[in-house]
């Protein structure tokens, strides 16, 4: 097990290097730092001095890959690639383009993000499984038919509609929740319940439908027929056999996305003014702060790989047939 984990971790290194190179290429080769500077300072009427000053203040005035003017190790280390890209492997994200420490911002903004993403995820999982099981229980009745139609319809509604509509109804018309904002500690509950509710509700369409297909696949297998044939009650078949075996792909799939919850939800956070990582990213995109976008890309990639490894581990835990070697 340990050896397997080590190998998986080693396998993660080339992927992270790939992500790193890709972001470097996107951010520094396709557009030079000069382009970035001009974008920030306005395209027209920019003096070369202003561009040089902008670059120097943010450390973008170095050579891209090889610093020919420096001696020894500094030939490689005193470059944009080393300082802006490679240092991310040590989680040194540096400063954002407006001069604030990115790592600090991530540490404080992680919690509001989790306060919304985690409950949305857990409650959503439970609700979706419940809905899928109910539909399975009423197989080949009008309940199932209506339910499936409702799910397809809900899946076809834009997520923005749920957010805008929910915010309008609950916060503005009925005034049950503050329209936006956030407070730390227990007060947070007042602000997060509505985003969580909307997030769960908006996810039912696609989520429950997906779980339903998983359960249906399980329900078509031979052991289920055997269970029915030996006279087990329908509830027993559903909960002891189908649910138990259907949970394997559901749990492992859930574990894979679990680490990514840290990244928060882009849209939800910015609509409700939650100071989390999602709104941080959106603000960075809107103000074209490439340093933050680069950091978030790298962080996302790390979390994705953690998710992959967790999935493998969780397979051995829930399914005794799978052995890691």
């Amino acid at each position, binding site marked *: 097990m340990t050896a397997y984990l080590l190998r998986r971790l080693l396998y993660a290194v*080339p*992927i*992270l290097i*790939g*992500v790193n190179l*890709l*972001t470097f290429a*996107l*951010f520094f080769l*396709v*557009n030079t730092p000069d*382009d*970035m500077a*001009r*974008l920030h300072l306005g*395209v027209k009427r920019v003096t070369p001095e202003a561009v040089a000053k902008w670059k120097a203040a943010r450390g973008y005035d170095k050579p891209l890959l090889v610093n020919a003017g420096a001696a020894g190790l500094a030939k490689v280390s005193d470059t944009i690639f080393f300082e802006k890209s490679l240092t991310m492997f040590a989680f040194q994200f540096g400063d954002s383009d407006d001069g604030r420490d990115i790592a600090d911002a991530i540490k404080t903004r992680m919690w509001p993000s989790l306060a919304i993403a985690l409950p949305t995820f857990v409650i959503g999982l439970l609700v979706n499984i419940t809905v899928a099981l109910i539909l399975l229980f009423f197989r080949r009745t009008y309940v199932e038919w209506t339910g499936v139609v409702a799910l*397809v*319809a809900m*899946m*076809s*509604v*834009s*997520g*923005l*509609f749920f957010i*805008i509509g929910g915010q*309008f109804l609950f916060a*503005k018309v009925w005034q049950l929740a503050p329209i936006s904002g956030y407070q730390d500690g227990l007060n947070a509950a007042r602000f997060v319940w509505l985003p969580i509710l909307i997030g769960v509700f908006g996810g039912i369409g696609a989520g429950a439908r997906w779980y339903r297909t998983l359960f249906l696949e399980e329900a*078509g297998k031979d052991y289920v027929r055997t269970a029915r044939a030996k006279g087990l009650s329908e509830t027993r078949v559903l909960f002891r056999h189908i649910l138990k075996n259907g949970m394997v792909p559901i749990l492992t799939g859930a574990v894979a996305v679990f680490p*990514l919850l840290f*990244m928060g939800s*882009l*849209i939800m956070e910015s609509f409700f003014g939650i100071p989390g990582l999602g709104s941080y*990213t*959106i603000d960075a*995109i*809107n103000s*074209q702060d*490439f340093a933050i*976008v*680069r950091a*978030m*890309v790298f962080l*996302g*990639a790390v979390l*994705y*790989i953690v998710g992959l490894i967790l999935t493998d581990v969780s397979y051995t835990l829930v399914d005794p047939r799978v052995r890691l070697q």
Partner: protein
Amino acid sequence: MMPVLLWTDGLIFLLVAGLAAFVFVVRRHEHLAAPWRRVAADPVAMAAAVVLLCFVAIAVLDSLHFRPALPAGPQGEIQYAPEVKSVLDRTLAPLTAHQEKSYSAPFATRLFTREAITLADGRTVRDFPRLQYGGAALADPDAGRASDILVRTATGLAGGLAAWLVLVWALRRPLRRSAARGPILYTLLAVFLIAGAMVALAPHYHVFGTDKVGQDVLYTTLKSIRTGVLIGALTTLMTLPLAIGLGVSAGYFGGRIDDVVQYLYTTLNAIPGVLLIAAAVLMMQTQLETHPDWFETGAERADLRLLFLCMILGMTNWTGLARLLRGETLKVRELDYVVAARAFGVSNTRILLRHILPNVQHIVLISVVMDFSGLVLAEAVLSYVGVGVDPGMMSFGNMINGARLELAREPVVWWQLVAAFAFMFVLVLSANLFADSVRDALDPRSRSRS
């Protein structure tokens, strides 16, 4: 006038031509046609297909672009207007011409906001001024409005019904043996009735109201359809070569190639989708901004941006399909007839084209139709994040984005949002229903199950 062929126009025509060729080939091969006949017999799928076709027709009409000629100059030389119009614009000319001052509610005869009006006797009062075009034919806007709308709607519905009856008569032969005849005709009836009512009402009222600058919302909504359809369709067009090429060769050749392809898609998957798209779009934006000489008109610029957006979405979207294709190719390559072909010394290219591709094509088709609706929805979200289509381009995302802050007004400006969401819902729902049916018919696994 001077015809203009934008990049996306060319691609959409290519796509339509490709679709026609596909239909032609499928009709001639029984084993290919069989699953599609099941789709054709599915009432829900065919009703959805009718609605989808209407959307596509609007998108194609909106893709026939031209630059209208300006009045001839003193020497008689012909000049062309700087802005690019489409056939749809020409058809909807009354709507574009009927520009009000600002917001007005659906079917309103007065502006949404109060303004200072100078009366005939010289006094100035603050009141809701009459709209310039909405209900302009009415002598007394408050009393005659309801009956006027009713009469016009009735005429429109009657016209729609008449057109539908003609169509039913024209279609009686091709549809005679169709199992889904009823649903097709009834969906068409609904489409015709709605269209008839719109045609009768739209020149005299703003059916969906007007937006902030007084533009008719019905017009914006209809123009947004092209953007949505294009994003859904062109992105998959961009995805296919990468996904098929890399996925199939990874599965077929294995070894080093497989390693490289797997590494590629794991790396791309590792980057959160929205962020990768955002990063790429930001870069593209900088490029476009530093090279204003690449395009002549604003429409060309917006069009190029849309094309790049489709490419970027395609670059980030191919991984899922490639993985599926790799898995399926791994299975197919071990089948007896492929092994036999290899033993006979058939070349790899030939095996891939004759034996592998035809046996994985159902996966490609299923994923194309399944991805379409997701992409239409994604456009709205991306536009909200600020990395979607050009802000000057009419799209559902831009409509929602522009209107969402107006919900905070008192009284609420709701019509823009409702119109955008409603059209998007109908488009995505019909795409989803059609996709479900295609998947059920083409996936061999689901065939054996039911």
